[in-house]
């Protein structure tokens, strides 16, 4: 484990460029020129001037998707390359600005989001034109928001919070890396490989659909703000996606998917793809044989993938968005994280959790695997810091932006902006590090032993973990306490899940895996957060069988 983390950090700093000068390209030239013009000229009588402007451009370039089903290629489908842009503008001053307030939940226009546009013309003029358009709109809306925020605050008691400035200016940082090319690959080899691997699905007559798709792509991000912070990131990557549909022996229909991201396509990645397809198919075979579950309350072993999703849902989501957004419609902000007090015992004492925005890749036996949340400079232009979120089970550090919470603490570089929100406290690459680890076999032994201790006939191993509290687990294996018997179940639904489960972690595995979290970029097919976690044994969780009934057999047999 230690070795893996060390390699991870070494990789991170290879090729980093903390530049002083703006990169000499049309993206920054256009953004700079328009930002300067807006700061100088954008004025409205009776309204404060722009105080902070941030521009962000994302250029997504896609190679044609290579996809095959049951041994036949699909025509080469290509989504549009897309240059999209964000403009975040705040007016007023650091003491009192227009952010941190949301007028209404009813309309996008009044939501807490930056101005956004996709399909921007890829030219200096096109970028300027769109940035102008978004900035102008953003400024107009900001003047409304500023007035509303002031009016709202006048109705409230003068508290310690209100004495805080809205913004604590923090030293700005720069990061620039060369713009990369799309991942290179031999198209014929890739097509042959994808076709061959998809043909493996023919051996499983119960599969109603089985496909493999590979999408080489590249994402360039250009960020600039009016305080002088900027960054340029260029990430060539390949999305590899497997999907299947089956109807198990009882007639229960199930879709099953798996995806991962890799920085390149070569022999090693093909070997990895082969292995992952084999594992995927083995999982499908198990799902076909699956039996119906019963109510269960007891210990659960989360495989690394499930553990990553579990950590994100119960810990990650509760640490992000630290500062509530004020609103005239509701006094409660449902998006705000629940873990806000440093020192709070949130996890089992054997667990430490980091958030490392400086990590980019992790090694695997087949080469590097990409993490989703690499972010050397945040979306307020502040150098991002690695945080120890949880140390020995207690909350230690929280993500901060330039918007202070209770004391005049400056940002630690964790402001993240997306289509749905101005920059708020966000996480990047969450890494779970247990004090002690066990091998897979030892973890299973421990699970069985705990079942025996509790008088349970079996325990569960989860391969995936649902996003929602009452979601259905895609794949779960029942492991019997007194025998070697194992069987996969279908339709197992998580019930009454609370953050208590984080404190019930009793053991962890040796090998960690990356899980990519669906993100605001997901419409472009790119992740922006990841969790790197080993398997976790949780002492108690509750499950109930799904209410969904199995379907009848197909009218006509599969050809």
């Amino acid at each position, binding site marked *: 484990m230690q070795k893996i983390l060390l390699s991870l950090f070494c990789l991170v700093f290879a090729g980093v460029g903390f530049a002083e000068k703006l990169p000499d390209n049309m993206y920054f030239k256009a953004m700079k*020129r*328009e930002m300067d*013009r*807006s700061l100088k*000229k*954008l*004025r*409205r009588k009776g309204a404060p001037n722009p105080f902070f402007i941030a521009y962000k451009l994302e250029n997504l370039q896609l190679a*044609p998707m290579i996809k*095959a*089903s*049951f*041994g*036949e*290629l*699909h*025509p*080469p*489908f*290509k*989504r*549009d*390359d*897309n*240059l999209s842009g964000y403009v975040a503008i705040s007016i007023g001053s650091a003491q009192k600005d227009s952010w941190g307030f949301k007028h209404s939940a009813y309309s996008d226009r009044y939501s807490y989001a930056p101005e956004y546009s996709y*399909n*921007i*013309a*890829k*030219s*200096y*003029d*096109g*970028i*300027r*034109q769109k940035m*102008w*358009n978004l900035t*102008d*709109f953003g*400024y*107009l809306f900001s003047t409304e928001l500023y007035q509303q925020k002031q009016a709202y605050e006048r109705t409230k008691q003068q508290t310690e919070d209100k004495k805080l400035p809205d913004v604590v200016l923090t030293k700005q940082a720069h990061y620039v890396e060369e713009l990369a090319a799309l991942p290179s690959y031999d198209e014929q080899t890739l097509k042959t490989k994808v076709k061959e691997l998809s043909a493996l699905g*023919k051996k499983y007559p119960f599969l*109603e*659909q089985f496909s493999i798709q590979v999408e080489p792509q590249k994402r360039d991000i250009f960020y600039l703000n009016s305080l002088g912070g900027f960054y340029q990131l260029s990430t060539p990557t390949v999305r590899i996606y497997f999907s299947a*549909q089956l109807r198990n022996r009882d007639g229960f229909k199930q879709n099953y998917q798996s995806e991962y991201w890799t920085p390149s396509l070569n022999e090693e990645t093909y070997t990895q793809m082969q292995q992952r397809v084999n594992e995927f198919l083995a999982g499908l075979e198990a799902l076909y044989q699956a039996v119906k579950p019963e109510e269960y309350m007891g210990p659960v072993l989360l495989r690394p993938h499930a553990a990553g999703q579990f950590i994100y849902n119960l810990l990650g989501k509760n640490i992000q968005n630290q500062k509530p957004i004020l609103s005239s419609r509701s006094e409660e902000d449902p998006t705000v994280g629940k873990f806000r007090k440093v020192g709070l015992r949130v996890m089992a004492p054997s667990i430490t959790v980091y958030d490392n925005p400086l990590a980019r890749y992790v090694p695997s036996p087949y080469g590097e695997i990409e993490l989703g949340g690499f972010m050397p400079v945040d979306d307020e232009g502040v150098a991002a810091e690695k945080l120890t979120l949880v140390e020995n089970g207690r909350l230690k550090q929280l993500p901060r932006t330039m918007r202070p919470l209770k004391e005049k603490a400056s940002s630690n570089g964790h402001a993240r902006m997306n289509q749905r929100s101005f920059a708020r406290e966000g996480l990047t690459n969450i890494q779970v590090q247990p004090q002690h680890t066990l091998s897979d076999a030892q973890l299973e032994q421990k699970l069985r032993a705990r079942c025996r201790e509790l008088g349970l006939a079996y325990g569960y191993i989860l391969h995936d973990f649902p996003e929602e509290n009452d979601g259905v687990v895609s794949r779960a294996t029942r492991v019997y306490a007194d025998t070697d018997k194992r069987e996969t179940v279908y339709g197992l639904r998580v019930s009454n899940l609370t953050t208590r489960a984080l404190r019930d972690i009793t053991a962890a595995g040796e090998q960690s895996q990356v899980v990519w979290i669906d993100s605001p970029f997901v419409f472009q097919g790119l992740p922006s957060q990841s969790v790197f976690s080993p398997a976790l044994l949780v002492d108690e969780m509750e499950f109930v069988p799904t209410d969904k009934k199995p*379907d009848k057999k*197909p*009218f*006509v047999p*599969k*050809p």
Partner: protein
Amino acid sequence: MAMKKYILLFVLVGLFSTGFAQTTCRVQDQKPLELLSQTVKRSMHTFKKQDPPIYYLNYNLNDVDIYTAEASEGGLLYARDMRYQAAQVQVRAGSPRMDNTRTLKTAGTNYLLDTVQMPEIGADGKAFLTALWRLTEQAAEAAQQDFNRVRADSQTASARKDNSPDFVFPPKETFCEEYPPLTFDKQKIEKLLLRVSDLTRGKPYVLNSSFSFEMQSGSRYFVDSVGTQLKTPVRLARLMYNLRGKTADGAEINRSGFYDVLSEEELPSEEQLTADVQRSLQELHDLLNAPEAEPITVPVILKNKAMAVFVHEVLGHRVEGHRQKEDSFGKTFTDKVGQEIVAPLLTIVDDATLPYFNNIPLRGFYRYDEEGVKARPVTLVENGILKGFLMSSSPINGFAASNGHGRGEEGMRPVARMGNTRVIASKTVSYDELEKQLLEEIKRQQKPYGFIIEDLSGGFTMTETNFPQTFKLTPTLVYRVYPDGRKEPVRGADIVGTPLAAFHEVIAAADDYGVFNGSCGAESGWVPVSGIAPSVLLHKLEFEKTGKSDLQPPLLPPPFGEEK
């Protein structure tokens, strides 16, 4: 008599225009048709025995090359070139008298069709057949569920005025037609788009602009359980631009241009395109500085393209067959067959078999509709008298069969839609003469002015009973014409009215037939359509103000407009 001449003319135009490039093909040589037919046979053998039975099945397989590119301010937004192959299945459960497609009482999705992107056929066709099988199974399950809901709904439903069956089997057809793929020099087109997009530089009143090209070229395969097997061409290409500005009081003004073509030679020259864009820029500028129109009822000339849109919106949608059947529709014309519904001067025909008019490709051209029924000219109105309706495979009282107008976007169940809607005037004058008549009419009615509607981008018409049975059309270029002949552009004049009254107002027509090519959106999605019409003079039309944005225009001028 005059009508017969026109129909003959349509046919000749059709033969001459389509004969030069098509190549013959044989249905039995088409592998997709073979596999689709095989699946139909295999499925129907079992489907018929189910409860409820699945009694009809059809597939549409689109195999097309799609190319789209868009530019603005000298940069490309995107350029996409890909092949698209997707199958769509339509399954009918129950019986032709009552099946799963009947409108559900509560929210349902039975107007949607299952579609899937298909793999290549390959050597054994297995992957293709498996994808098709899965698609069909899903659709069959959904059709049975929908039919059960329809059957339950029927227990409590009030009596239907038109109790015609839900479906009539289409006749068996076999047809195969191929064209060489449409070929355009894509690099040349992208460079052209970039160059013309630069014409907005230095024009601060242009808030945004778009210059684009789109092309679809390939084949559509159709197979059904009646035994029909069709291969028909898909050929659409269009160059277009749009310029947008905004007045200080929030009115959004657009000017646009469209060029529908089927070869590179038919594209406008760069000089022509540049001249057109510059003219549109001038029009945009003039409209942004033009006075706002006031609500008024005055004599009007609808220029040819505007008249084509007017007919499409105000009359065309109301003679779509399914709207005569459902009691939720207003049925403006349902019981008026044989009665005069428009001025006797006009004859209206929908003829989807017409590929060109005046050397302009018509977007509403097709050989067979999405239900596998052969397209044919349909006389809707003859000398003002309503003769019939546009029919899909859903019969109505007095009209038991489809006339080849069952159309829909991929993924949407076809309903009766227009193709090429043509207005023919039995008596015409020159356009100059028509303007003279307008001035006389203004004076005769003692109106302060009349209007010439130069361009009409579209609008909407409400046909459901729980809304007013009105239409509202949005002209994009309108001139106010004073009794002395003076013209000035005005903005913000919407045409509003009711269909029965509006068409009786036509008092004269010009001989300047023009083509409107566009896309029409309705229950079955977006379909390409065309309208052909002469300019007409209307005794009067009512105008009302256009809605405006409550957002002021940008504070700063656009940088592209500021710099030259």
